[in-house]
Structure formats: structure tokens, C-alpha cells
């Protein structure tokens, strides 16, 4: 029995036995190469739930606003985000029923459109590991594994870190080769080159804050961007303000970011946001040995310290 059917079965059981008020999952509304989050409350509707490599949203994002009992379809990175949210008192463990999905990686739509030179895909059919895309003047068969998202290529937690029910067997760990290759390349270049790189990619930002809204960890009632007296960061697309917004948002994910890639996927102008969050995750690992969202009751690195923390940079 394939995972999708098993997922629907579990969801129907939860709803029928009134264990949860809603099942948050993914639904296919017919748009090519993508699914959309859905909120199933009626057991009959569980057949709308799908499970395929296009289920890319981090559904933990929807848990912070809810007061009711919710079941959520969660990949490895999503469950890590849920652990962080529980540790930060944003959701209660008893209010969330986690349907853990071992995940082989999700497809990055932008990579496909890149490959197709931004061709207009009108239809996409997935048949075990092969996507057949059709446009008005072209068709093509694409292998799922060739278009996985960057964060999935270096994923160390393909299996749920925490779940009530796990749908499907654990996947073998991915042998991740040089997880921080891009970051290291940038680190080795000169500061002028790095500045030019970030000035260029961040000048595309139009301050729409989609990256902030897509991220499950950005649940603040009022973000520092909306703060007045003092207003720390300007609201225009002046390059200095945009850079300050992005480095400070990234700074606020220190030791919390689970690298689910939701921020980069939601950006309309393809800003390389993960180049910042991934760098901080690398530093946190090197300096403090921490990884985000692995245990409950785990303290975030910046609200914890050791007597012998590294301080070679301090005179």
C-alpha cells in the first residue's frame, strides 16, 4: 500500500475518532508541478490529501496561529521546526498530532523552469520518479532526483525527528558530501567579492517579506521591521537597509533554522536567502556543536553558554 493511501487512512481515522479538529496536509489543485496546503476537517475529504515530491511547504508554519487540536503532515525538516516551536512555547505537544513522513527530497520548481528556459508548463504528470511536462510547443521527461531542492541534497534528517504516527519505513541516511560547499567557496573569496555577491543578490529584494511569512520560525507578533522608536531598519529598498533586514532576520534564526528552504522557495525574485541562514547554521555547528530542533527541552544556543565557549576573536 503506497504512502499516500496510508496517509489518507491515518487521517480518516484521526478525524472520525475526533482526535483532531483538522488535518493539515497537501492537495493537488491541478496546477502543474506544485501542490497547495489544505485543511481537511471532514473525514470524507481525506482523499484530497496527496503525498509526492511536490509537497514542499513547511506546514509547521500554520501551527503557531492555531488554538485547536491539529494533525499535520510533516517531513523531517518540518518535524524539526515543530520541535523548535514546542521548545519556544509556541505550540503545545498535546495539541499537535504529527503524521511523520520519511522524505526522499522535494522538487525545486525553479530548477525545472531554469532547465526549460522558463518555458510555459501547462501540464505535469508524475509517474514514479519521472515527471512528464507538457507545454504548448514542447514536452519533456524529467527525473525527480535531478531537480531536488538544494536543502534536500544536504539533508541529514530525512526521517521524522518526532512524530505520533510514522507513515512508511525510515529511509537510509543520505551520505552528504560537503554540505557547505557553496558557503565555503564564498568564504574563501575576498571580502570585496563577497560584498559584491550579496549586494547583487539582495538588490533584487523588493521587501515583500514573503521569506519571513513563509518561515515557521518567524512567528513574532511584531517583527523588528515594524518597530518604531527606534526604527532599526529603514523600510525602503535602499541596499543598506535591505542587507540589514536580511542579515538580522538570518541572525534571529541562529541555532533555530532547520534549513527547510521555505524562505528561498517563496522569494519572487530568487534572492539567495539560504546563503545567509546556512552560513549561520555552519557557524553554530562549528562554534557550539548544536543543530536545530533535534530534542525537546533543548535550549537555543543564544540563550545558553559554556564557560569555555570560543573567544579567540576577543582581545
Amino acid at each position, binding site marked *: 500500500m503506497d504512502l499516500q493511501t496510508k496517509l489518507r487512512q491515518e487521517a480518516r481515522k484521526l478525524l472520525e475518532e475526533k482526535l483532531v479538529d483538522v488535518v493539515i496536509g497537501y492537495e493537488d489543485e491541478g496546477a502543474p508541478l506544485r501542490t497547495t496546503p489544505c485543511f481537511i476537517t471532514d473525514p470524507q475529504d481525506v482523499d484530497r490529501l496527496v503525498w509526492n515530491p511536490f509537497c514542499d511547504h513547511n506546514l509547521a508554519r500554520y501551527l503557531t496561529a492555531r488554538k485547536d487540536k491539529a494533525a499535520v503532515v510533516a517531513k523531517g525538516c518540518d518535524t524539526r521546526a515543530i520541535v523548535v516551536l514546542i521548545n519556544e512555547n509556541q505550540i503545545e505537544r498535546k495539541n499537535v498530532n504529527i503524521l511523520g513522513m520519511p522524505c526522499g527530497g522535494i522538487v525545486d520548481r525553479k530548477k525545472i523552469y531554469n532547465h526549460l528556459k522558463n518555458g510555459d508548463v501547462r501540464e505535469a504528470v508524475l509517474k514514479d520518479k519521472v515527471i512528464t511536462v507538457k507545454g504548448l510547443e514542447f514536452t519533456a521527461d524529467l527525473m525527480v532526483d535531478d531537480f531536488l531542492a538544494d536543502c534536500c541534497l544536504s539533508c541529514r534528517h530525512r526521517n521524522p525527528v518526532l512524530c505520533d504516527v510514522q507513515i512508511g519505513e525510515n529511509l537510509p541516511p543520505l551520505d552528504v558530501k560537503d554540505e557547505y560547499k557553496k558557503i565555503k567557496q*564564498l*568564504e574563501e573569496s575576498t*571580502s*570585496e*567579492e*563577497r*560584498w*559584491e*555577491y*550579496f*549586494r547583487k543578490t539582495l*538588490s533584487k529584494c523588493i521587501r515583500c517579506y514573503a521569506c519571513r511569512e513563509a518561515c515557521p520560525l518567524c512567528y513574532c507578533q511584531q517583527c*523588528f521591521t515594524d518597530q518604531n522608536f*527606534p526604527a*532599526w531598519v*529603514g523600510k*525602503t*529598498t*535602499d541596499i*543598506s*537597509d535591505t*542587507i*540589514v533586514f536580511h*542579515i*538580522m532576520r*538570518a*541572525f534571529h534564526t*541562529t541555532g533555530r533554522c532547520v534549513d527547510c528552504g521555505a524562505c528561498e522557495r517563496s522569494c519572487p525574485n530568487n534572492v539567495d536567502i539560504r546563503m*545567509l541562514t546556512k*552560513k*549561520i547554521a555552519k*557557524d*553554530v555547528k562549528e*562554534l*557550539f556543536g548544536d543543530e536545530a530542533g533535534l530534542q525537546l527541552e533543548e535550549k537555543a*544556543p*543564544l*540563550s*545558553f*553558554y559554556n*564557560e569555555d*565557549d*570560543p*573567544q579567540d*576573536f*576577543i*582581545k
Partner: protein
Amino acid sequence: MQEQPENWEPRIIAFLCSWCSYAGADLAGVSRRRYSPNVRIVKVPCSGRVNPFYIVKSLQQGCDGVLVSGCHPGECHYSNGNYYARRRFAILKRLLEYIGLEEGRVHFSWVSASEGDKFAKVVNEVTETVRKLGPATRLVKHSPVDGVVN
């Protein structure tokens, strides 16, 4: 060496914790210990009080250098403010230098109330390092953006 406009002097802001480093600075003054006059000191209760935005905002305002100084680990008047600050600055310094801020713009030090000499040495050293880098350009927020799309 960056070519600098003539008679340019680095402008450096320093956040000193009031119990140790600020007292150290006072001691440097009391013992007439000469050090370069490029630093403007802002007194904060503890190095743990220094919000990352203070450093970023200083750089945006055009400060050529930023120094944050607090009590030595173990001597913090509030017992662990400097420990949290140490972690915060470790991440922030690497991030700033990663996005292209020149190394040597942002400095951190531990100066206790009895280390007047060390404070003077740190200020001189920071001033010379910043002088070599020339005036701040990156992250500096320039005059208003005009209407036309860049």
C-alpha cells in the same frame, strides 16, 4: 591601503560595560594614559546589553569602527551577561565579515576595572587597524533614495 581623503580621522564608537570597561577607561584617564581620541564611548550596563542592532546601526550611520568591551568572563557584575554576549558576538562577527564587511571594522575585548593600560592599548590598536582600512563604505546608508528605480 585604501586611499583616504586627506585629514580623515577614523570615527569609532565603543560600547563599554559600566562595571568593568567603563571603569577601566576612567582609570586610563586618571593615570593620564594617552590613547587616540577617535573613540566615542557609550556606557551600557553590561556587555550583554549590547543588542546586535547597535553594531549594525553604528555601521549604517557611517562609523568606521565599532568596539564592544565588557568584563572578563567570570567577573561580570551580573554574573553571566558577558557569556551570552560572547556567543552573540561570535556569530554576528562571522556573519558581518561573511557578507563582505572588512575584517577589522568590528572589535570585541575584555577590559576589567583595573586594566587602564589595556584599555588604552586596545583603543590605539583598534584605531590603527581601522585607519588602515580607510573610511567605511559598505553597509553605510547614504542620502535619500530618489524616485527613479535603480
